[in-house]
C-alpha cells in the first residue's frame, strides 16, 4: 500500500533524483490503481460487439489509406503540423484529467474544459496539503494526459514523430512552470512507465506564447525518477502526451493554462541529437 502510493506520488510529481530499486515483477500497468471491476463479462462482450461496427469502419479507412496514399518522404522544414488542437470539446473530453485527490492522496483539484475564448483551459488548485491518515508522505499535483494511441480494434500502436525534431505549443499560462510528459511505453514492465520530461515555462499575462522545444532536450524518467542512464527520446515510439503541474516547494495555489494546440515541427537549424552527457559512468554507482 505504502510503496504503491509513494510510487504514484513520485511518478506524478516533478522528476526526482532518487532511484527506485523495484526490480520485482509488476502485475498490472495501473499498479494497484485499477479500481473495482464494474462491468459484467457478458455485458462487456455485448458492448464489444456493438463497437465492432465502428472499429471495422476505422480498419477500412486504415487499409484504404495504406493502399492509396504514398508515404510522406519529405517533411517541409519549419512547418508546424498540429498533433492536437483543443478548439473542439470532443478533443478535450478524450483527455484524462487526474489529480492527487482522485485516490484520496491529496487535496488538489483540476478541470479541463473549453475556455471563454474557445480553447482548452486546464485550471484548478494544487496544494501540497497531505491527507490526515498518514499514508502519504508528499502530495500536490494535477495532470492531463492523452489516451494511449490506438488503431482499429483498440490495438495499441505508436505515434511516429521521427520526421520532426521540435515540439511546438501555443499556450497562455499564468507564469508557473509546467511539465511536459511524453510517454514512450514499452512492452515489458520496467518500461511501462518510461516518460520523457521537460519544463514548459509560461510567461503569464493575457498574451499567447509559442514555445518551441527541441526533442533532444527531453530527459528520461521512469516512474517520475530521472534515470542515470539517459537515452534520446525514441520518436517513433510515442504513446501519449501529457502536462502536469506541481504544488510543492511553496507553489500551492490556483493555476490555469489555456492551450490552443500541440504541434510538431522539423527545424533544420537544430542538429542536436541529445542534450545530456552520454559518457561512460562509474560502475556500481549508476542506476543503483
Amino acid at each position, binding site marked *: 500500500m505504502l510503496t504503491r502510493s509513494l510510487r504514484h506520488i513520485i511518478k506524478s510529481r516533478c*522528476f*526526482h*533524483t*532518487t532511484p527506485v530499486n523495484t526490480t520485482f515483477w509488476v502485475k498490472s500497468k495501473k499498479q494497484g490503481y485499477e479500481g473495482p471491476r464494474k462491468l459484467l463479462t457478458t455485458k462487456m462482450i455485448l458492448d464489444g460487439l456493438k463497437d465492432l461496427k465502428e472499429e471495422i469502419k476505422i480498419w477500412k479507412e486504415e487499409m484504404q489509406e495504406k493502399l492509396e496514399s504514398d508515404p510522406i518522404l519529405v517533411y517541409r522544414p519549419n*512547418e508546424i503540423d498540429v498533433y492536437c488542437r483543443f478548439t473542439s470539446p470532443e478533443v478535450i473530453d478524450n483527455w484524462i484529467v487526474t489529480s492527487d485527490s482522485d485516490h484520496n492522496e491529496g*487535496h*488538489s*483539484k483540476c478541470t479541463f474544459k473549453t475556455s*471563454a*475564448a*474557445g480553447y482548452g483551459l486546464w485550471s484548478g*488548485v494544487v*496544494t501540497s*496539503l497531505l491527507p*490526515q*491518515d*498518514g499514508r502519504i508522505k*508528499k502530495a500536490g499535483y494535477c495532470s492531463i494526459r492523452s489516451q494511449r494511441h490506438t488503431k482499429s480494434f483498440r490495438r495499441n500502436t505508436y505515434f511516429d514523430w521521427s520526421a520532426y525534431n521540435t515540439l511546438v505549443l501555443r499556450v497562455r499560462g*499564468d*507564469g*508557473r*512552470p509546467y511539465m511536459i510528459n511524453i510517454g514512450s511505453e514499452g512492452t515489458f514492465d520496467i518500461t511501462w512507465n518510461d516518460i520523457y520530461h521537460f*519544463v514548459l*515555462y509560461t*510567461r*503569464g*499575462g*493575457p*498574451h*499567447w*506564447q509559442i514555445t518551441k522545444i527541441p526533442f533532444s532536450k527531453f530527459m528520461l524518467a521512469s516512474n517520475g525518477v*530521472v534515470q*542515470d542512464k539517459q537515452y534520446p527520446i525514441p520518436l517513433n515510439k510515442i504513446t501519449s502526451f501529457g502536462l502536469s503541474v506541481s504544488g*510543492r*516547494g*511553496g*507553489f500551492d*495555489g*490556483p*493555476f*490555469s493554462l489555456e492551450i490552443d494546440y500541440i504541434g510538431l515541427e522539423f527545424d533544420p537549424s537544430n542538429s542536436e541529437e541529445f542534450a545530456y552527457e552520454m559518457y561512460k559512468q562509474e560502475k*556500481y*554507482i549508476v542506476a*543503483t
Partner: protein
Amino acid sequence: MIRGRSCLVSLIKNRCKTQVFNHARVFCTKEEKKEETNFDEEKVKREKQHEFFTKRALILRGSFETIEDKNKGSYLEMIDIFINKDVHRRNHVEFIYAALKNMKDFGVIRDLEVYKKLIDVMPKGKFIPTNLFQVEFQHYPKQQQCIIDLLDQMEDNGVIPDYEMEDQLINIFGRRGHPVRKFWRMMYWMPKFKNLSPWIVPNPPPNDEYELAKLAVERMCSVDLQSKISTFYTSDVESSIDDTWIVSGQSPIQQELLAKHNREKGLYIQGPFKIWLRYKCINYYLLRSDSPENFVEFNDQIEIDDVSDIDVPIFSLGQVKPKSNKLAIMRSVHEQKDGTVYAICCIGQHTKDTLLSWLRLLEKNGNPCLENLIVLFKLATPDNTTEIVVQSKDPVKT
C-alpha cells in the same frame, strides 16, 4: 518511541537551560535585585511545561513547536544544543526528522546553511561501509534514508547543494553511500534547470508587493519590446480616495490601437487575474475590448499540396484578383481572437477607485482618447472555489 521521548525531554531541558541562562543574562544587566524571584518563577513555569509535555500522548511533539520567536537564529541554536548535549548524540535521526518538519515555520526552508548544519549532526566516519556487503545492503539504512529525505526536501524547495556538502556526506557515509549518490545526481540535474526560464525572476523573489508588481508587469509586457512600464500614484488624481501606487505597462502600438478603437464599442477593465513569479503570486488587471466583428483569422501559409485548383497566370491574365483574406494588415500581438489588450496594470489596493485613477492617469499619459470612451468594470470577486477546504471527516488515527 521511548528513545524518541527521552531525546525530546532532554532537548526541552537543554532548551530551558539556555533560555533561563539568556533571561538571567538580560536581567543581570538590568536589575540585579529582581533576578532571583524571576528566576524562580521561570523555573516553575518551565517545569510545569515539561510535565505537561511528558504527560501528553505517547508521541510527543518536538520542542521546535514550543519556541515562541521562530527564526533562523533560534533554529540554529536548537541544533547547537543538540550537538553539544552529549558525545553520543542519541536519536539524531529522530531529531533531524523533527527539524525538517519544522523548517517552514522557522522560515529556513530555502536556506542551504541550515541544511548543512543539520547534516553536521550526523557522526563522521561511523557509517562508512568497510566491505562490499555493507555497501550493497545499505549500511545504516535509517540514517541513510534520513539524509536522503533531507536532500529530497532540498530538491523540492529548489535548494542547490554545494561542494562543502559533498565533503560532509562523504565523511559521514563514504563514497558509496546512497546520500552521496543522490547528491551527485542533484548536482548534475539541478544546475541545468536553475537559470533555464526565459523570464528571469530574482531568487528569492522580492517580498515587497510593489517590487513584485514591477517584475510582473515587466514580464507580461515582454511580449512587446516597445512597452513602457511606468509607476503612477493615485495622489496625482484629484478625485481619488485611495493613496497607492499603480504599475502600468503599455506600448506605443497599444496606444495607437486605443486611439483607433471604435467609440461605440465598450472597453473593459477586467480582473483580477493571477501571475506567478517563482512561488509568489500577484494579481493584475487588463484594459481590453472584444475583438472587432470583422476579425478574420487569415492563414499566411498557402496550401501548396492542393493541386486541384492551380492558377495559371497566362490564361487568366488581368482577371486574377488577390483574395481578400490573403491581403491584410499585419496584426500586432495585442490583437487576439478573444479581444484586444490595451494596457496591463498591478495596483497596491484592489479597489474600483484605484482602477478608475489608473484610467485617468492613462488618459493623461498618452491616451487622450479615453475621455470619450465607455469603460465597463468587469471585476471578479476573489473566487471561493480556488480555496481548498480540508474536511476532517476521519480523525487522525493514533
